[in-house]
């Protein structure tokens, strides 16, 4: 069943009773590859300050000064094998490139991997989560 209040029949260009008595139009049901329905989505990236202008603190302010271990956990300062926090939050576009394999500015390959692991684990409500989630946009 069609859900309520969807497009009424009027105004549809190809309504059958257009008097095309003799020549009937072919309706290509199978031919459409790209899909016959495109939905308009909010163009968030169009807002003035583009989303990539956001930043991600590692770790967030409530745990500043803590170290980050190789798998991205926040651990006590000086923990063996863990890395000191980077001096400044990372810019959105730097993180986007790092997620695609590049290296975060001012990091070594190992500390870079640790910081990216921390960013991947960000939970909602933690500083930087929204910036990180928006870097996954646009989806699909």
């Amino acid at each position: 069943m069609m859900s309520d209040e969807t497009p009424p029949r009027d105004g549809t260009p190809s309504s059958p009773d257009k008097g095309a008595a003799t020549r009937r139009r072919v309706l290509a049901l199978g031919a459409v590859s790209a899909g016959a329905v495109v939905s308009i989505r909010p163009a968030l990236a169009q807002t003035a300050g583009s989303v990539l202008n956001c930043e991600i603190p590692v770790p967030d302010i409530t745990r500043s000064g803590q170290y980050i271990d190789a798998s991205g956990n926040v651990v006590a300062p000086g923990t063996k094998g863990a890395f000191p926090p980077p001096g400044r939050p990372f810019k959105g576009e730097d993180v986007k490139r790092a997620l695609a394999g590049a290296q975060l500015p001012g990091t070594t390959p190992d500390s870079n991997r640790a910081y990216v692991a921390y960013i991947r684990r960000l939970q909602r409500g933690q500083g930087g989560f929204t910036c990180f989630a928006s870097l996954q946009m646009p989806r699909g």
Partner: protein
Amino acid sequence: MRHALSLRIGPFGFRIGSDWRAPIETLADLYADYPRPELPDYTVRLEALRPWRRWIRPAMAVSGDYMLPDAAPLPLAQALLAAEMGMNLQLALGARRFLLLHASAVERDGRALLMSGESGAGKSTLATLLAARGWRFMGDEFALIEPETGLAWPLPRLISLKNDGVSAAARVWPGARFGPLLHDTPKGTIRHLVPDATAIAAMDEPVQPAVLLFPRFGAAAAVRAVPPGEAFVRLTQASTNYVALGEAGFAALTALIRGVPAYAVDYPDGETAIAQVEALWPEP
């Protein structure tokens, strides 16, 4: 807040607060000829990132009624850009009385030319060049379409010119007032140009849109008529609040597309673009 200023640009009143004096003085100077709002629609705040960052390595967090979380702070020297981004964000996320299009607008014989395109397509520079040729400047960042009437309302904010756009504007606009030169901002080198007196005086005069342009700088000169379908899709992606407006947005956009011819214009330089516009502009 310690320092504050209210100003009206077109139909929108803003209240801007700052932890520092300098940004408010710069704004007050550049927006001196602008009216004060009876009641501001939106609030923008330029706050120290941390209490001590007012003095030590000052850094400014831009916020307001509507904000994008985790926004990166800006250096104090770029206060003018911060205030501009703050005001844009309030309109982009908060405005409902108008359909907002990322487009510049100029007016001639009572009708508007809208120029839509991503940043870098040259919509600000073109608007400035046309204003220097006698068109009335309406806005360089947002075109406001009133859903009930279809009229385009002016939003003559300071024009933010990037890199070589600054010299182009200075050449054709010798008497213009400029804001400070802002280096290595997120948008490169920027300088703000104050719109001329006629543009500010006419900020409450809406006009009927007559032509919609999709300019693209840098390619060989070419003009192509843009079919309604393509124009519709491009404008839904060039609008910050099309989806939020719901039915009113759909009605406003389809009416605009139905009533206004659209062209894609590639231009290698300003002179060519102006000639192309003159050729496309309908006789009064």
